Protein backbone atom coordinates (compact mmCIF):
# COMPACT_ATOMS: atom_id res chain seq x y z
CA UNK A 1 0.00 0.00 0.00
CA UNK A 2 1.54 3.28 -1.02
CA UNK A 3 0.75 6.60 0.56
CA UNK A 4 -0.98 7.87 -2.54
CA UNK A 5 -3.65 5.24 -2.23
CA UNK A 6 -4.35 6.41 1.28
CA UNK A 7 -4.94 9.95 0.13
CA UNK A 8 -8.36 11.31 -0.74
CA UNK A 9 -7.13 12.79 -4.02
CA UNK A 10 -8.25 11.08 -7.19
CA UNK A 11 -10.06 7.81 -6.75
CA UNK A 12 -11.61 7.46 -3.31
CA UNK A 13 -9.57 5.07 -1.23
CA UNK A 14 -11.19 2.46 0.98
CA UNK A 15 -12.91 3.99 3.96
CA UNK A 16 -13.58 7.32 2.28
CA UNK A 17 -16.89 8.87 1.41
CA UNK A 18 -17.50 10.62 -1.88
CA UNK A 19 -18.20 14.32 -1.59
CA UNK A 20 -21.82 15.39 -1.73
CA UNK A 21 -21.98 18.23 -4.26
CA UNK A 22 -23.51 21.54 -3.28
CA UNK A 23 -23.00 21.33 0.46
CA UNK A 24 -20.06 22.60 2.50
CA UNK A 25 -17.70 19.94 3.86
CA UNK A 26 -18.43 21.10 7.39
CA UNK A 27 -21.44 23.09 8.49
CA UNK A 28 -21.73 24.24 12.07
CA UNK A 29 -25.16 25.67 12.65
CA UNK A 30 -26.28 27.66 15.70
CA UNK A 31 -24.12 25.50 17.95
CA UNK A 32 -24.40 25.95 21.72
CA UNK A 33 -22.15 24.07 24.10
CA UNK A 34 -22.25 24.12 27.87
CA UNK A 35 -22.84 22.37 31.15
CA UNK A 36 -26.25 21.28 32.29
CA UNK A 37 -26.78 20.22 35.87
CA UNK A 38 -30.06 20.03 37.67
CA UNK A 39 -32.10 22.99 36.50
CA UNK A 40 -29.13 25.23 35.74
CA UNK A 41 -27.40 25.62 32.43
CA UNK A 42 -24.16 27.42 31.79
CA UNK A 43 -23.54 28.18 28.13
CA UNK A 44 -19.92 28.38 27.12
CA UNK A 45 -20.43 28.48 23.35
CA UNK A 46 -23.57 30.31 22.19
CA UNK A 47 -25.11 30.05 18.73
CA UNK A 48 -21.95 29.60 16.67
CA UNK A 49 -22.36 29.05 12.94
CA UNK A 50 -19.81 28.67 10.15
CA UNK A 51 -19.13 26.66 7.01
CA UNK A 52 -15.92 25.15 5.75
CA UNK A 53 -15.71 24.23 2.07
CA UNK A 54 -13.48 21.48 0.68
CA UNK A 55 -9.90 22.69 0.65
CA UNK A 56 -10.69 25.78 2.71
CA UNK A 57 -8.53 26.64 5.70
CA UNK A 58 -10.32 28.32 8.54
CA UNK A 59 -8.78 29.86 11.64
CA UNK A 60 -10.74 30.43 14.83
CA UNK A 61 -9.13 33.00 17.09
CA UNK A 62 -10.01 33.95 20.63
CA UNK A 63 -8.75 34.30 24.18
CA UNK A 64 -8.79 31.57 26.82
CA UNK A 65 -12.35 30.74 27.72
CA UNK A 66 -13.79 32.16 24.51
CA UNK A 67 -15.15 28.72 23.62
CA UNK A 68 -13.00 28.17 20.53
CA UNK A 69 -11.50 24.90 21.72
CA UNK A 70 -14.85 23.55 22.87
CA UNK A 71 -16.32 24.36 19.45
CA UNK A 72 -13.55 22.31 17.88
CA UNK A 73 -14.00 19.45 20.33
CA UNK A 74 -17.75 19.45 19.71
CA UNK A 75 -17.00 18.86 16.02
CA UNK A 76 -14.65 16.01 16.92
CA UNK A 77 -17.12 14.58 19.43
CA UNK A 78 -14.53 14.89 22.19
CA UNK A 79 -16.21 17.24 24.65
CA UNK A 80 -14.84 16.68 28.14
CA UNK A 81 -17.46 15.66 30.70
CA UNK A 82 -19.71 17.25 31.87
CA UNK A 83 -19.71 19.61 28.86
CA UNK A 84 -22.24 18.75 26.14
CA UNK A 85 -23.83 20.14 22.99
CA UNK A 86 -26.91 21.99 24.20
CA UNK A 87 -28.45 22.83 20.84
CA UNK A 88 -27.64 23.38 17.19
CA UNK A 89 -26.23 21.14 14.52
CA UNK A 90 -22.95 19.94 13.03
CA UNK A 91 -23.04 18.46 9.55
CA UNK A 92 -20.16 16.75 7.85
CA UNK A 93 -20.48 16.27 4.09
CA UNK A 94 -24.26 16.67 4.41
CA UNK A 95 -24.62 14.13 7.23
CA UNK A 96 -25.73 15.16 10.71
CA UNK A 97 -22.85 14.31 13.05
CA UNK A 98 -24.79 14.81 16.27
CA UNK A 99 -27.72 12.63 15.24
CA UNK A 100 -25.79 9.69 13.85
CA UNK A 101 -25.08 6.56 15.91
CA UNK A 102 -21.85 6.72 17.91
CA UNK A 103 -20.35 3.82 15.99
CA UNK A 104 -20.94 5.47 12.62
CA UNK A 105 -19.49 8.71 13.92
CA UNK A 106 -16.37 6.96 15.22
CA UNK A 107 -15.90 5.39 11.81
CA UNK A 108 -15.49 8.92 10.42
CA UNK A 109 -12.82 9.81 12.95
CA UNK A 110 -9.54 9.14 11.22
CA UNK A 111 -10.38 8.57 7.56
CA UNK A 112 -12.64 11.64 7.24
CA UNK A 113 -11.96 13.89 10.23
CA UNK A 114 -8.72 13.95 12.21
CA UNK A 115 -7.52 16.06 15.07
CA UNK A 116 -4.20 17.47 16.22
CA UNK A 117 -3.93 18.48 19.86
CA UNK A 118 -2.21 21.33 21.63
CA UNK A 119 0.21 19.43 23.83
CA UNK A 120 2.36 16.95 21.95
CA UNK A 121 3.80 16.06 25.37
CA UNK A 122 0.57 14.70 26.75
CA UNK A 123 -1.40 13.83 23.63
CA UNK A 124 0.72 10.79 22.85
CA UNK A 125 0.33 7.55 24.78
CA UNK A 126 3.51 7.38 26.90
CA UNK A 127 3.72 3.58 26.96
CA UNK A 128 3.22 2.91 23.23
CA UNK A 129 5.83 3.19 20.48
CA UNK A 130 5.06 6.15 18.26
CA UNK A 131 5.06 4.01 15.12
CA UNK A 132 2.36 1.81 16.61
CA UNK A 133 0.34 4.86 17.55
CA UNK A 134 0.45 6.12 13.97
CA UNK A 135 -0.34 2.67 12.60
CA UNK A 136 -3.38 2.27 14.84
CA UNK A 137 -5.73 4.35 12.69
CA UNK A 138 -4.79 2.79 9.33
CA UNK A 139 -5.18 -0.67 10.84
CA UNK A 140 -8.62 0.10 12.13
CA UNK A 141 -9.98 2.14 9.26
CA UNK A 142 -8.09 1.07 6.16
CA UNK A 143 -8.00 -2.59 7.14
CA UNK A 144 -4.24 -2.81 6.81
CA UNK A 145 -2.21 -5.62 8.31
CA UNK A 146 0.08 -4.80 11.20
CA UNK A 147 3.06 -4.94 8.87
CA UNK A 148 1.53 -2.77 6.14
CA UNK A 149 0.28 -0.25 8.70
CA UNK A 150 3.74 -0.14 10.24
CA UNK A 151 5.29 0.58 6.86
CA UNK A 152 2.70 3.25 6.21
CA UNK A 153 3.52 4.79 9.58
CA UNK A 154 7.19 5.05 8.61
CA UNK A 155 6.26 6.62 5.28
CA UNK A 156 4.00 9.08 7.04
CA UNK A 157 6.80 10.01 9.40
CA UNK A 158 9.09 10.56 6.43
CA UNK A 159 6.44 12.78 4.88
CA UNK A 160 6.24 14.94 7.96
CA UNK A 161 9.99 15.48 7.74
CA UNK A 162 11.11 13.24 10.58
CA UNK A 163 14.70 12.17 9.93
CA UNK A 164 15.51 8.46 10.23
CA UNK A 165 11.83 7.51 10.50
CA UNK A 166 12.30 3.73 10.60
CA UNK A 167 14.35 3.99 13.78
CA UNK A 168 12.22 6.73 15.33
CA UNK A 169 9.07 4.67 14.79
CA UNK A 170 10.33 2.37 17.52
CA UNK A 171 10.84 5.23 19.97
CA UNK A 172 8.56 6.11 22.86
CA UNK A 173 7.17 9.65 23.00
CA UNK A 174 9.37 10.75 25.90
CA UNK A 175 12.45 9.96 23.84
CA UNK A 176 11.54 12.59 21.23
CA UNK A 177 11.66 16.39 21.26
CA UNK A 178 8.52 18.51 21.32
CA UNK A 179 8.79 19.36 17.65
CA UNK A 180 9.25 15.74 16.65
CA UNK A 181 6.35 14.74 18.82
CA UNK A 182 4.09 17.26 17.14
CA UNK A 183 5.22 15.90 13.76
CA UNK A 184 4.24 12.46 15.02
CA UNK A 185 0.83 13.85 15.94
CA UNK A 186 0.51 15.28 12.45
CA UNK A 187 1.64 12.02 10.84
CA UNK A 188 -0.95 10.25 12.97
CA UNK A 189 -3.68 12.67 11.98
CA UNK A 190 -3.04 12.48 8.24
CA UNK A 191 -2.28 8.75 8.18
CA UNK A 192 -5.78 7.84 6.96
CA UNK A 193 -5.94 10.74 4.53
CA UNK A 194 -8.67 12.78 6.22
CA UNK A 195 -10.62 15.43 4.36
CA UNK A 196 -10.95 17.64 7.41
CA UNK A 197 -8.17 18.36 9.86
CA UNK A 198 -9.01 19.90 13.24
CA UNK A 199 -6.10 21.62 14.96
CA UNK A 200 -6.28 22.76 18.58
CA UNK A 201 -3.43 25.23 19.08
CA UNK A 202 -0.97 22.72 17.62
CA UNK A 203 2.02 25.03 17.90
CA UNK A 204 1.40 26.80 21.22
CA UNK A 205 3.55 24.40 23.21
CA UNK A 206 6.49 24.57 20.80
CA UNK A 207 9.54 26.81 20.52
CA UNK A 208 9.03 29.67 18.11
CA UNK A 209 11.50 28.32 15.57
CA UNK A 210 9.87 24.91 15.60
CA UNK A 211 6.43 26.53 15.42
CA UNK A 212 7.11 27.93 12.02
CA UNK A 213 8.37 24.60 10.65
CA UNK A 214 5.29 22.80 11.92
CA UNK A 215 2.97 25.44 10.44
CA UNK A 216 4.70 25.19 7.08
CA UNK A 217 4.38 21.42 7.22
CA UNK A 218 0.66 21.60 7.97
CA UNK A 219 0.13 24.10 5.19
CA UNK A 220 2.02 21.94 2.69
CA UNK A 221 0.21 18.75 3.65
CA UNK A 222 -3.16 20.45 3.32
CA UNK A 223 -2.26 21.96 0.01
CA UNK A 224 -0.91 18.69 -1.40
CA UNK A 225 -4.01 16.73 -0.55
CA UNK A 226 -6.75 19.36 -0.65
CA UNK A 227 -7.50 18.80 3.03
CA UNK A 228 -9.69 21.33 4.78
CA UNK A 229 -8.46 22.81 8.01
CA UNK A 230 -10.08 24.23 11.09
CA UNK A 231 -7.33 25.84 13.11
CA UNK A 232 -7.96 27.08 16.62
CA UNK A 233 -5.43 29.48 18.14
CA UNK A 234 -5.10 32.58 20.26
CA UNK A 235 -2.32 33.82 17.99
CA UNK A 236 -3.38 36.00 15.07
CA UNK A 237 0.01 35.73 13.41
CA UNK A 238 -0.36 31.96 13.21
CA UNK A 239 -3.71 32.35 11.44
CA UNK A 240 -2.17 34.74 9.00
CA UNK A 241 0.45 32.12 8.10
CA UNK A 242 -1.83 29.14 7.68
CA UNK A 243 -5.42 30.10 6.97
CA UNK A 244 -7.52 31.74 4.33
CA UNK A 245 -10.65 32.29 6.41
CA UNK A 246 -10.96 33.68 9.90
CA UNK A 247 -13.55 33.63 12.66
CA UNK A 248 -12.97 35.61 15.83
CA UNK A 249 -14.64 34.34 18.99
CA UNK A 250 -15.34 36.29 22.13
CA UNK A 251 -17.22 35.04 25.19
CA UNK A 252 -18.76 32.11 23.36
CA UNK A 253 -19.84 34.03 20.25
CA UNK A 254 -18.37 34.53 16.82
CA UNK A 255 -18.01 38.30 16.68
CA UNK A 256 -16.44 38.60 13.28
CA UNK A 257 -15.64 36.43 10.29
CA UNK A 258 -14.34 36.82 6.78
CA UNK A 259 -11.25 36.30 4.67
CA UNK A 260 -8.03 36.62 6.64
CA UNK A 261 -6.54 39.30 4.39
CA UNK A 262 -9.63 41.51 4.46
CA UNK A 263 -10.09 41.18 8.18
CA UNK A 264 -6.48 41.99 8.95
CA UNK A 265 -6.59 44.99 6.67
CA UNK A 266 -9.82 46.39 7.99
CA UNK A 267 -11.32 44.73 11.07
CA UNK A 268 -15.03 45.42 11.49
CA UNK A 269 -15.41 44.50 15.14
CA UNK A 270 -13.77 46.46 17.97
CA UNK A 271 -12.52 43.24 19.57
CA UNK A 272 -10.74 42.09 16.40
CA UNK A 273 -9.24 45.49 16.10
CA UNK A 274 -8.14 45.37 19.71
CA UNK A 275 -6.52 41.98 19.14
CA UNK A 276 -4.60 43.25 16.12
CA UNK A 277 -3.41 46.36 17.91
CA UNK A 278 -2.29 44.44 20.98
CA UNK A 279 -0.20 41.94 19.00
CA UNK A 280 3.35 42.83 18.01
CA UNK A 281 3.91 43.26 14.31
CA UNK A 282 7.41 42.50 13.13
CA UNK A 283 6.94 44.42 9.92
CA UNK A 284 6.25 47.59 11.85
CA UNK A 285 8.24 47.40 15.08
CA UNK A 286 7.69 51.08 15.78
CA UNK A 287 3.93 50.69 16.13
CA UNK A 288 2.71 51.15 19.69
CA UNK A 289 1.01 48.16 21.26
CA UNK A 290 -2.44 48.92 22.63
CA UNK A 291 -3.73 46.39 25.13
CA UNK A 292 -7.45 45.72 25.45
CA UNK A 293 -8.53 47.05 28.85
CA UNK A 294 -10.19 44.71 31.34
CA UNK A 295 -10.74 40.95 31.20
CA UNK A 296 -13.11 38.69 29.30
CA UNK A 297 -16.29 38.01 31.26
CA UNK A 298 -16.71 34.88 33.37
CA UNK A 299 -18.74 32.20 31.56
CA UNK A 300 -21.30 32.07 34.32
CA UNK A 301 -22.06 35.80 34.37
CA UNK A 302 -21.73 37.28 30.94
CA UNK A 303 -22.99 40.84 30.69
CA UNK A 304 -26.36 41.70 29.24
CA UNK A 305 -26.22 42.82 25.63
CA UNK A 306 -22.94 42.74 23.72
CA UNK A 307 -20.45 40.72 25.77
CA UNK A 308 -17.60 42.98 24.68
CA UNK A 309 -19.38 46.20 25.65
CA UNK A 310 -17.66 46.66 29.05
CA UNK A 311 -14.22 46.68 27.36
CA UNK A 312 -15.19 48.42 24.16
CA UNK A 313 -14.02 51.87 23.12
CA UNK A 314 -16.90 52.31 20.70
CA UNK A 315 -19.62 51.46 23.20
CA UNK A 316 -23.00 53.23 23.05
CA UNK A 317 -26.07 52.85 25.26
CA UNK A 318 -27.87 50.39 23.01
CA UNK A 319 -24.86 48.01 23.13
CA UNK A 320 -25.80 46.87 26.65
CA UNK A 321 -29.47 46.40 25.79
CA UNK A 322 -29.37 43.66 23.14
CA UNK A 323 -26.85 41.22 21.74
CA UNK A 324 -25.82 42.47 18.31
CA UNK A 325 -26.50 39.80 15.67
CA UNK A 326 -23.84 38.60 13.29
CA UNK A 327 -24.69 40.49 10.09
CA UNK A 328 -23.06 40.99 6.72
CA UNK A 329 -21.17 44.25 6.81
CA UNK A 330 -19.44 43.87 3.46
CA UNK A 331 -19.41 41.12 0.81
CA UNK A 332 -18.15 37.97 2.55
CA UNK A 333 -17.66 39.85 5.84
CA UNK A 334 -19.74 39.27 8.96
CA UNK A 335 -19.54 41.22 12.21
CA UNK A 336 -21.63 41.28 15.37
CA UNK A 337 -21.45 44.95 16.25
CA UNK A 338 -24.01 47.77 16.17
CA UNK A 339 -21.23 50.25 15.63
CA UNK A 340 -19.43 48.32 12.91
CA UNK A 341 -19.80 51.17 10.42
CA UNK A 342 -17.70 53.41 12.63
CA UNK A 343 -14.76 51.05 12.17
CA UNK A 344 -13.79 52.09 8.67
CA UNK A 345 -10.14 52.65 9.32
CA UNK A 346 -7.69 50.63 7.24
CA UNK A 347 -4.92 49.35 9.49
CA UNK A 348 -2.09 48.48 7.16
Amino acid at each position, binding site marked *: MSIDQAQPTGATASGHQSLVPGVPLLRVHDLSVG*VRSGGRTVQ*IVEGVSFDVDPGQRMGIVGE*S*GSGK*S*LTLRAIAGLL*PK*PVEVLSGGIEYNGADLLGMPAKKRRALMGPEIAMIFQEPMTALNPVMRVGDQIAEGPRRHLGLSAKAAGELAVQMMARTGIPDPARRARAYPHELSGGLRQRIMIAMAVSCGPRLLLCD*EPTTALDVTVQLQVLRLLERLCEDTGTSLVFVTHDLAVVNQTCSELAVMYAGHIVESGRVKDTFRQPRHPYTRGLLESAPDFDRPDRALVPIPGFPPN*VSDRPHGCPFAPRCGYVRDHCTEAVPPLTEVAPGRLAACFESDRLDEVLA
Partner: protein
Amino acid sequence: MTTVAVATATKAMRRPARSRSLRAWYRNGTLMAGLVIVGLLVLAAVLAPWLTPYDPVQQDLAQALQSPSSAHWLGTDKYGRDVLTRLLWGARVDLRIGFLAVLIPFVIGSVLGALAGYFGGWFDTVVMRVVDVFFAFPFYVLVIALVFILGAGESSIYLAIAAVSWVSYAKIMRGELLVAKKQDYVVAARLGGMSHARILVKHIGPNVLSQALIYAMSDIVMDILAIVTLGYLGLGIAPPTAEWGSMILDGQEFITTQWLQATIPGLAVVVTSLGLSLLGDGLSDQLSPERRK
Protein backbone atom coordinates in the same frame (compact mmCIF):
# COMPACT_ATOMS: atom_id res chain seq x y z
CA MET B 1 -7.78 26.65 27.02
CA THR B 2 -10.68 24.29 27.20
CA THR B 3 -10.00 23.38 30.76
CA VAL B 4 -10.23 26.97 31.93
CA ALA B 5 -13.71 27.41 30.53
CA VAL B 6 -14.88 24.05 31.80
CA ALA B 7 -13.44 24.63 35.25
CA THR B 8 -15.12 28.00 35.62
CA ALA B 9 -18.36 26.62 34.26
CA THR B 10 -18.43 23.63 36.58
CA LYS B 11 -17.37 25.77 39.49
CA ALA B 12 -20.27 28.05 38.78
CA MET B 13 -22.61 25.06 38.99
CA ARG B 14 -21.32 24.09 42.39
CA ARG B 15 -21.88 27.38 44.07
CA PRO B 16 -21.77 28.19 46.93
CA ALA B 17 -18.11 27.43 47.17
CA ARG B 18 -16.86 24.90 49.70
CA SER B 19 -15.91 26.51 52.97
CA ARG B 20 -14.49 25.16 56.18
CA SER B 21 -17.50 26.17 58.17
CA LEU B 22 -19.46 23.80 60.33
CA ARG B 23 -22.07 23.59 57.62
CA ALA B 24 -19.51 22.26 55.18
CA TRP B 25 -18.67 19.51 57.65
CA TYR B 26 -22.32 18.76 58.07
CA ARG B 27 -22.79 18.59 54.31
CA ASN B 28 -20.00 16.05 53.95
CA GLY B 29 -22.17 12.97 53.82
CA THR B 30 -19.34 10.47 54.08
CA LEU B 31 -17.99 12.13 57.18
CA MET B 32 -21.39 12.32 58.83
CA ALA B 33 -22.20 8.69 58.04
CA GLY B 34 -18.88 7.66 59.55
CA LEU B 35 -19.40 9.82 62.62
CA VAL B 36 -22.88 8.40 63.19
CA ILE B 37 -21.74 4.77 62.87
CA VAL B 38 -18.68 5.21 65.06
CA GLY B 39 -20.66 7.33 67.53
CA LEU B 40 -23.36 4.68 67.92
CA LEU B 41 -20.74 1.96 68.39
CA VAL B 42 -18.87 3.92 71.03
CA LEU B 43 -22.16 4.67 72.77
CA ALA B 44 -23.13 0.99 72.69
CA ALA B 45 -19.75 0.04 74.10
CA VAL B 46 -19.90 2.59 76.90
CA LEU B 47 -23.47 1.77 77.83
CA ALA B 48 -23.04 -2.01 77.52
CA PRO B 49 -23.53 -2.73 81.27
CA TRP B 50 -26.88 -0.96 81.22
CA LEU B 51 -28.07 -2.18 77.85
CA THR B 52 -28.39 -5.86 78.68
CA PRO B 53 -29.41 -7.68 81.84
CA TYR B 54 -26.89 -10.51 81.32
CA ASP B 55 -23.32 -10.97 82.47
CA PRO B 56 -20.78 -11.34 79.64
CA VAL B 57 -18.64 -13.90 81.47
CA GLN B 58 -20.93 -15.85 83.85
CA GLN B 59 -21.60 -19.32 82.46
CA ASP B 60 -25.06 -20.93 82.49
CA LEU B 61 -24.64 -24.32 80.86
CA ALA B 62 -28.37 -25.05 81.05
CA GLN B 63 -28.89 -22.24 78.53
CA ALA B 64 -26.08 -23.31 76.15
CA LEU B 65 -26.32 -22.92 72.36
CA GLN B 66 -29.80 -21.49 72.14
CA SER B 67 -31.15 -20.05 68.92
CA PRO B 68 -32.25 -16.41 68.86
CA SER B 69 -35.33 -15.81 71.00
CA SER B 70 -37.04 -12.91 72.77
CA ALA B 71 -34.90 -13.57 75.85
CA HIS B 72 -31.64 -13.91 73.88
CA TRP B 73 -31.93 -11.85 70.68
CA LEU B 74 -28.84 -13.39 69.13
CA GLY B 75 -28.94 -16.70 71.01
CA THR B 76 -26.39 -18.03 73.49
CA ASP B 77 -22.91 -19.53 73.12
CA LYS B 78 -21.67 -22.91 74.20
CA TYR B 79 -21.38 -21.79 77.82
CA GLY B 80 -24.91 -20.38 77.81
CA ARG B 81 -23.76 -16.74 77.71
CA ASP B 82 -25.92 -14.21 75.84
CA VAL B 83 -24.25 -13.48 72.46
CA LEU B 84 -25.58 -9.92 72.22
CA THR B 85 -24.21 -9.14 75.67
CA ARG B 86 -20.80 -10.50 74.73
CA LEU B 87 -20.94 -8.55 71.48
CA LEU B 88 -21.50 -5.29 73.34
CA TRP B 89 -18.85 -6.03 75.95
CA GLY B 90 -16.53 -7.10 73.15
CA ALA B 91 -16.94 -3.65 71.60
CA ARG B 92 -15.56 -2.19 74.82
CA VAL B 93 -12.40 -4.25 74.49
CA ASP B 94 -11.83 -4.08 70.74
CA LEU B 95 -12.64 -0.41 70.29
CA ARG B 96 -10.60 0.67 73.31
CA ILE B 97 -7.52 -1.25 72.27
CA GLY B 98 -7.93 -0.23 68.64
CA PHE B 99 -8.08 3.47 69.45
CA LEU B 100 -5.34 3.41 72.06
CA ALA B 101 -3.00 1.27 69.96
CA VAL B 102 -2.82 3.97 67.30
CA LEU B 103 -1.51 6.65 69.62
CA ILE B 104 2.04 5.43 70.30
CA PRO B 105 3.03 4.63 66.71
CA PHE B 106 1.31 7.82 65.51
CA VAL B 107 3.47 9.97 67.77
CA ILE B 108 6.75 8.06 67.44
CA GLY B 109 6.44 7.48 63.68
CA SER B 110 5.32 11.01 62.86
CA VAL B 111 8.08 12.64 64.87
CA LEU B 112 10.85 10.40 63.53
CA GLY B 113 9.58 10.71 59.96
CA ALA B 114 9.21 14.47 60.20
CA LEU B 115 12.71 14.94 61.61
CA ALA B 116 14.20 12.59 59.02
CA GLY B 117 12.45 14.37 56.18
CA TYR B 118 13.21 17.86 57.42
CA PHE B 119 16.84 17.47 58.36
CA GLY B 120 17.87 14.69 55.98
CA GLY B 121 21.49 13.61 56.24
CA TRP B 122 22.71 10.72 58.35
CA PHE B 123 19.69 10.82 60.64
CA ASP B 124 17.41 10.33 57.65
CA THR B 125 19.57 7.47 56.38
CA VAL B 126 19.57 5.66 59.70
CA VAL B 127 15.83 6.08 60.27
CA MET B 128 14.98 4.97 56.76
CA ARG B 129 17.21 1.89 56.94
CA VAL B 130 15.47 0.87 60.16
CA VAL B 131 12.14 1.55 58.47
CA ASP B 132 13.21 -0.70 55.57
CA VAL B 133 14.04 -3.51 57.95
CA PHE B 134 10.69 -3.31 59.73
CA PHE B 135 8.91 -2.87 56.45
CA ALA B 136 10.30 -6.17 55.22
CA PHE B 137 8.15 -7.99 57.75
CA PRO B 138 4.49 -8.29 56.89
CA PHE B 139 2.31 -6.72 59.57
CA TYR B 140 0.87 -9.96 60.88
CA VAL B 141 4.16 -11.85 60.96
CA LEU B 142 5.78 -9.33 63.24
CA VAL B 143 2.70 -8.65 65.37
CA ILE B 144 2.07 -12.34 65.93
CA ALA B 145 5.73 -13.04 66.67
CA LEU B 146 6.01 -10.09 69.04
CA VAL B 147 2.80 -10.87 70.91
CA PHE B 148 4.07 -14.41 71.34
CA ILE B 149 7.40 -13.18 72.66
CA LEU B 150 5.91 -10.59 74.96
CA GLY B 151 3.16 -12.94 76.11
CA ALA B 152 -0.54 -12.70 75.28
CA GLY B 153 -2.36 -9.76 76.81
CA GLU B 154 -3.35 -6.16 76.27
CA SER B 155 -0.02 -4.47 76.94
CA SER B 156 1.78 -6.85 74.56
CA ILE B 157 -0.73 -5.93 71.85
CA TYR B 158 0.01 -2.23 72.31
CA LEU B 159 3.75 -2.82 72.17
CA ALA B 160 3.60 -5.18 69.20
CA ILE B 161 1.38 -2.85 67.16
CA ALA B 162 3.50 0.15 68.08
CA ALA B 163 6.68 -1.67 67.05
CA VAL B 164 5.21 -2.53 63.66
CA SER B 165 3.08 0.38 62.58
CA TRP B 166 5.22 3.40 63.47
CA VAL B 167 6.98 2.63 60.18
CA SER B 168 4.02 3.74 58.05
CA TYR B 169 3.70 7.06 59.87
CA ALA B 170 7.41 7.67 59.51
CA LYS B 171 7.21 7.01 55.76
CA ILE B 172 4.19 9.26 55.28
CA MET B 173 5.56 12.13 57.33
CA ARG B 174 8.99 11.94 55.74
CA GLY B 175 7.42 12.11 52.27
CA GLU B 176 5.24 15.04 53.30
CA LEU B 177 8.18 16.87 54.80
CA LEU B 178 10.36 16.36 51.75
CA VAL B 179 7.70 18.14 49.72
CA ALA B 180 6.80 20.71 52.34
CA LYS B 181 10.31 21.93 53.08
CA LYS B 182 10.75 22.95 49.45
CA GLN B 183 7.54 24.98 49.47
CA ASP B 184 7.93 28.71 49.11
CA TYR B 185 6.36 29.51 52.46
CA VAL B 186 8.92 27.39 54.29
CA VAL B 187 11.85 28.80 52.35
CA ALA B 188 10.51 32.26 53.05
CA ALA B 189 10.14 31.56 56.77
CA ARG B 190 13.71 30.23 56.90
CA LEU B 191 15.02 33.29 55.09
CA GLY B 192 13.04 35.36 57.58
CA GLY B 193 15.29 33.96 60.29
CA MET B 194 12.88 31.57 61.98
CA SER B 195 14.26 28.62 63.91
CA HIS B 196 13.87 25.08 62.64
CA ALA B 197 11.67 24.16 65.60
CA ARG B 198 9.36 27.07 64.99
CA ILE B 199 9.09 26.30 61.28
CA LEU B 200 8.39 22.64 61.95
CA VAL B 201 5.73 23.27 64.55
CA LYS B 202 4.13 26.46 63.30
CA HIS B 203 4.37 26.25 59.55
CA ILE B 204 4.84 22.71 58.40
CA GLY B 205 3.06 20.81 61.15
CA PRO B 206 -0.51 21.88 60.46
CA ASN B 207 -0.04 21.38 56.75
CA VAL B 208 1.38 17.87 56.84
CA LEU B 209 -0.26 16.41 59.92
CA SER B 210 -3.58 15.95 58.16
CA GLN B 211 -2.10 13.20 56.00
CA ALA B 212 -0.93 11.28 59.05
CA LEU B 213 -4.33 11.83 60.65
CA ILE B 214 -6.14 10.48 57.61
CA TYR B 215 -3.85 7.48 57.62
CA ALA B 216 -4.49 6.99 61.33
CA MET B 217 -8.16 6.36 60.58
CA SER B 218 -7.36 3.45 58.30
CA ASP B 219 -4.71 2.37 60.79
CA ILE B 220 -7.31 2.01 63.55
CA VAL B 221 -9.15 -0.35 61.21
CA MET B 222 -5.93 -2.31 60.68
CA ASP B 223 -5.35 -2.47 64.43
CA ILE B 224 -8.85 -3.65 65.23
CA LEU B 225 -8.49 -6.31 62.54
CA ALA B 226 -5.17 -7.32 64.09
CA ILE B 227 -6.63 -7.50 67.60
CA VAL B 228 -9.53 -9.60 66.37
CA THR B 229 -7.14 -11.83 64.44
CA LEU B 230 -4.94 -12.30 67.49
CA GLY B 231 -8.05 -13.15 69.49
CA TYR B 232 -9.04 -15.68 66.88
CA LEU B 233 -5.61 -17.27 67.03
CA GLY B 234 -5.85 -17.42 70.80
CA LEU B 235 -3.00 -14.93 71.24
CA GLY B 236 -5.06 -11.91 72.17
CA ILE B 237 -7.16 -11.07 75.15
CA ALA B 238 -7.46 -14.19 77.26
CA PRO B 239 -10.88 -15.83 77.70
CA PRO B 240 -13.35 -15.58 79.28
CA THR B 241 -13.26 -11.81 78.57
CA ALA B 242 -15.66 -11.06 75.74
CA GLU B 243 -13.74 -10.17 72.59
CA TRP B 244 -14.95 -10.39 68.97
CA GLY B 245 -12.05 -12.47 67.65
CA SER B 246 -12.28 -15.17 70.31
CA MET B 247 -16.08 -15.16 69.86
CA ILE B 248 -15.55 -16.04 66.19
CA LEU B 249 -13.12 -18.78 67.22
CA ASP B 250 -15.70 -20.21 69.65
CA GLY B 251 -18.44 -19.95 67.05
CA GLN B 252 -16.43 -21.66 64.31
CA GLU B 253 -16.90 -24.98 66.14
CA PHE B 254 -20.63 -24.81 65.51
CA ILE B 255 -20.47 -23.49 61.96
CA THR B 256 -22.70 -26.28 60.64
CA THR B 257 -25.40 -25.93 63.28
CA GLN B 258 -25.23 -22.45 64.79
CA TRP B 259 -23.67 -20.36 62.02
CA LEU B 260 -24.79 -17.08 63.60
CA GLN B 261 -22.21 -17.58 66.36
CA ALA B 262 -19.27 -16.98 64.02
CA THR B 263 -21.07 -14.60 61.68
CA ILE B 264 -22.32 -11.98 64.12
CA PRO B 265 -19.02 -10.87 65.72
CA GLY B 266 -17.47 -10.68 62.24
CA LEU B 267 -20.29 -8.42 61.10
CA ALA B 268 -19.62 -6.23 64.13
CA VAL B 269 -16.02 -5.86 62.96
CA VAL B 270 -17.18 -5.05 59.42
CA VAL B 271 -19.58 -2.34 60.63
CA THR B 272 -16.91 -0.83 62.89
CA SER B 273 -14.37 -0.77 60.07
CA LEU B 274 -16.93 0.66 57.68
CA GLY B 275 -17.67 3.49 60.08
CA LEU B 276 -14.00 4.26 60.59
CA SER B 277 -13.24 4.06 56.86
CA LEU B 278 -16.07 6.47 56.06
CA LEU B 279 -14.77 8.75 58.80
CA GLY B 280 -11.28 8.60 57.28
CA ASP B 281 -12.55 9.26 53.74
CA GLY B 282 -14.72 12.10 54.96
CA LEU B 283 -11.85 13.62 56.90
CA SER B 284 -9.57 13.42 53.93
CA ASP B 285 -12.23 15.14 51.78
CA GLN B 286 -12.45 17.82 54.41
CA LEU B 287 -8.78 18.28 55.21
CA SER B 288 -7.22 18.03 51.77
CA PRO B 289 -9.91 18.35 49.11
CA GLU B 290 -7.38 19.36 46.48
CA ARG B 291 -5.62 16.01 46.68
CA ARG B 292 -8.65 13.95 45.93
CA LYS B 293 -9.29 14.43 42.27
